[in-house]
């Protein structure tokens, strides 16, 4: 489970998201007022990218059909999603966002 740098914090404004690709993982760095979260950039409802999804606290809403997810644990918070998304342990150190990703093999 390597901890890898995924973005510089100043690349992601508060309230915005930034898609990144690391070791084959399609990730989304989400910077909400509540914190910074690195999540899988794919909705569990109809597999849309979550890029640009609105952030409210620890929630992200899929931009396609507004499926809500908790960015802390990935859980689906209501319809239309009924299964979770992957989220990754995230830390910010010296202005850099790191996430603990599963081994790619």
């Amino acid at each position: 489970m390597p901890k890898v740098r995924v973005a510089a914090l100043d690349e992601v404004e508060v309230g915005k998201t930034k898609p990144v690709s690391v070791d084959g993982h399609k990730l989304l760095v989400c910077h909400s007022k509540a914190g910074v979260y690195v999540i899988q950039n794919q909705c569990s409802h109809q597999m849309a990218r979550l890029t640009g999804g609105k952030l409210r606290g620890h929630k992200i809403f899929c931009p396609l059909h507004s499926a809500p997810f908790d960015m802390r644990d990935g859980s689906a918070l209501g319809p239309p999603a009924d299964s979770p998304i992957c989220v990754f342990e995230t830390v910010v150190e010296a202005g850099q966002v790191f996430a603990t990703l599963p081994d790619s093999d």
Partner: protein
Amino acid sequence: MTAKYEAKWPMDLGAPSESLEAKQPDIDNGLDVYHPSRYYSQEFMELEEQRLWPKVWLLAGVTSDIPEDGDFFVFSFGREQFIVVRQEDETIKAFYNVCPHRGNRVCLARSGSAASFSCAFHGWRFGIDGKLDNITDEDTFDPRLIAHRPGLSEVRCDSVGGIIFINMDGKAPELTDYLGLPEGYIEQYEIDKMHVVHHVRSEWKANWKIGVDAFYETYHLPYVHPQTQGVMEDFSQNDLYPNGASRMIVPICVKSHRVEDQETVDPYQAHMMMEAGLDPATFTGTASEVRAAVQQAKRERAQRLGLEHYDNFTDGQLTDSWATGLFPNVQMGMHPEGVFIMRFIPDAKDPEKFIYDTMILFRPVDDPDYDVPAWMGLPEGTDCSGDVRPEPIWVPAGESPNLGEVLDQDAELLPIVQEAVRSRGYRGALYGDQEQRVRHFEAELERYIYREK
């Protein structure tokens, strides 16, 4: 210090006429006995669908649920759903939740925040202002068919004092005229600064009006909720306003006049004293002096905490419940600490079912001892910070809604009333003066059903 009123019928708490607390002149709503089929027949339900619901302002939600642009919730009412969404200019718009293309629900979420709404059927996309953004493969449509750029169908939407209403046919009077309440009545509570801290939608096997009727009077308190006798007066001050609106002021922190011992402080009264920061052990007054003592304690606490909105309120408002009925299907228990909004929402198909939708709103105050009054039935450990908007809890028919002892007693009773009003031996309700709000509501309903409104 004593309770500054005499518990006799008709109840009048004695506020001066310029006060919002003042007893209103009675309205003569006659003595009609309405046929009980209004509570169970499909025909009456259809009349309501055609002649009532489209014409009235329906309470859709609260502004604090959608503080930022793009924030939305879906309001379900019978067969209809509405998307209520905050606009970039901070106004609020509402749309039928239906795609103009093939009729699918455009929004499948219950609430959230969106930059646009995309239909899950063929991907048509609409802005939060309801305007058409994109038609998938538009070049495959004859331009004449879509020349009007079909957007979401808008429904009239307005708000007062933090509460959002919609009107389906667009022809209702202006919202504040329609509501019939004096100017500032709702606004004084500053509900826009309160947050939903608890939301339960429970299904009850009764007609929605059986619900309204029961909650519009305190005549049943000694029989259905005898435990309230130690802490609530059941003679309420009833006030009728235009257009079916009404209020009952229920004195709280007092013993019912039916209780002989007005000296000994009841344990429920003692609990309410503690909520207000008083120590019942050192209280030297009688039971009838508790209400004034609690009012004074709350006034002083508000000053200490800098809660300026308390200046809006009479002493009575600091303890009593101002149960305020908005025609046709809303009652709000209004308090300085918070507001209990109940909606009686008819089932989409079955006249003998309704959804009892209850939202408890609280204005967060940074003080560990300041809380929503316990009798409002908030579960232990509820987050009252306002940071978390809880998901509505759905309770199917037959299960206890866990709304607190008093409301659970109502939930148990009303399905039995529903069964009984169908009896061949029942001729229709006989309303006494303590039930004048019920008659006021039913008389207004008649005006809609018989097209006088």
